[in-house]
């Protein structure tokens, strides 16, 4: 694989991203609502339901604790949907990428564009949910205004992970493994619903290797009053992993689409 096959062109990637924005601008009402209700129901059921019995966690009101965590999972789900089902459909069903790759766009531009788009969608969903959390009065710190930047990093990381998986699978059946063995466990075990502090050390070690844990650390920090070093450290983890994974879909999609 040569440099010409791995280094993306930003103008070309921007064009593909703009196509996605154009499609989204036509369907956003139908697309935005369902995914937006999901974290809202979790917030109501757990934060306001269970939270009635569990007053505080580490001194933080439970609904506030959960609300800040759910901002992260909203991002995870949005970015993951985008680069799993949606990408597979464009790749194998409508053969859209064959037509895009017949223009000056190359495979690595497509990878950059789709991950950037997944991050964009994740920011739209995550920020909307952040506003809800703020409306419920669960935001303490003015630093929460910076949340979208970090939601974008988290969205890019989950977008890249989903795209890497998509680029390697032959049929959509594999997604049930991706969701049940990866995404759902992350949702449950990344510190959204309970802190990991009092759990055994190995839990922390495992959690450190998962992206959602880092994103939850960031969003909770920003909403409740941040520790700048912790926020930036977790953000660096997300950026590093996203960048390191780039080569997987870039190579696998080239093999797949440019045989």
């Amino acid at each position, binding site marked *: 694989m040569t440099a010409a096959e791995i280094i993306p*062109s930003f103008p070309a990637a921007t*064009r593909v991203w703009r196509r996605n924005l154009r499609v989204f601008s036509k369907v956003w009402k139908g697309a935005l609502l369902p995914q937006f209700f999901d974290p809202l129901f979790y917030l109501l059921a757990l934060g306001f339901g269970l939270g009635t019995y569990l007053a505080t966690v580490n001194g933080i009101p439970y609904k506030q604790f959960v609300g800040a965590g759910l901002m992260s999972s909203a991002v995870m789900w949005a970015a993951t949907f985008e680069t799993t089902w949606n990408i597979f459909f464009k790749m194998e069903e409508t*053969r859209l990428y064959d*037509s895009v*790759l*017949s*223009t*000056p*766009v190359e495979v690595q531009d497509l990878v950059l564009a789709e991950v950037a788009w997944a991050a964009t969608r994740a920011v739209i969903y995550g920020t909307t949910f952040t506003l809800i959390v703020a409306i419920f009065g669960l935001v303490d710190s003015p630093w929460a205004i910076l949340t979208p930047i970090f939601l974008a990093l988290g969205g890019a990381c989950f977008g890249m992970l989903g795209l890497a998986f998509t680029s390697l699978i032959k049929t959509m059946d594999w997604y049930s493994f991706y969701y049940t063995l990866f995404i759902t466990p992350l949702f449950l075990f990344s510190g959204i619903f309970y802190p990991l502090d009092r759990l055994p050390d190995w839990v922390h070690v495992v959690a450190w290797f998962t992206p959602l844990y880092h994103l939850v650390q960031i969003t909770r920090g920003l909403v409740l009053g941040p520790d700048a070093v912790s926020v930036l450290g977790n953000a660096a983890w997300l950026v590093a992993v996203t960048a390191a994974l780039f080569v997987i879909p870039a190579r696998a999609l080239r093999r797949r689409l*440019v045989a």
Partner: protein
Amino acid sequence: MTAAVRARGLVKRYGAIVAVDQVDFEVPSGICFGFLGPNGAGKTTTMKMIYGLAHVDEGELSVLGLDARRQRREVKARIGVVPQEQNLDRELTVRENLAVQALYHGVRSDGRIEELLDFTLLRERAEAKPVELSGGMKRRLLIARALVNEPDLVVLDEPTTGLDPQARIAVWRLLEGLRSQGVTLLITTHYMEEAERICDQLVIMDGGRIVSEGAPNELLQRYDERNLEGVFLQVAGHELRE
């Protein structure tokens, strides 16, 4: 005049299968050049190597004077592609499909799109989605899309397969119009009458190799046949359609 496409010793393998086997050909600029042969002859693979959707395993391939192996972006900027499969953007209307194609190419589109809607007789369906179009209209849209960047060379893979006779004639008229504007056309087909009607020159492919080449009339004379079907039978040793 330089050749629009020049291939020397072109080879493409898929595992143990040799899809294109040491192929040489030269497409002069400004004509309609055909690849005639049955399914599986290697025509589509040859086209994909030209428009950058298949890697060249061996040999040299120059497209519009550029190295198709190393200058892919430059090549793709100057050609138009009409694929065999319908890969229109289903989420977008006819007009938006053309606008997004201009976007991918980074070219201004305003006047060009209107011109193409007229040229391909799609103006009245400009706001329709691909799913609402007939087979012939979809094919015309694919042709319009391939022309957005004002290409010097248009590659068309089986442009009339699956179309009814009327729609086929409409596509032929478009292609004749393009050729008269000086655009080089490269088409694959397994229809004899199509090759005879619109191709100035053609090669006959079978089993990944080029088995004969020339102008349609020249081939008929050389093999003393009344149609290309007979020519194919002589040079390939089997029928074009099995």
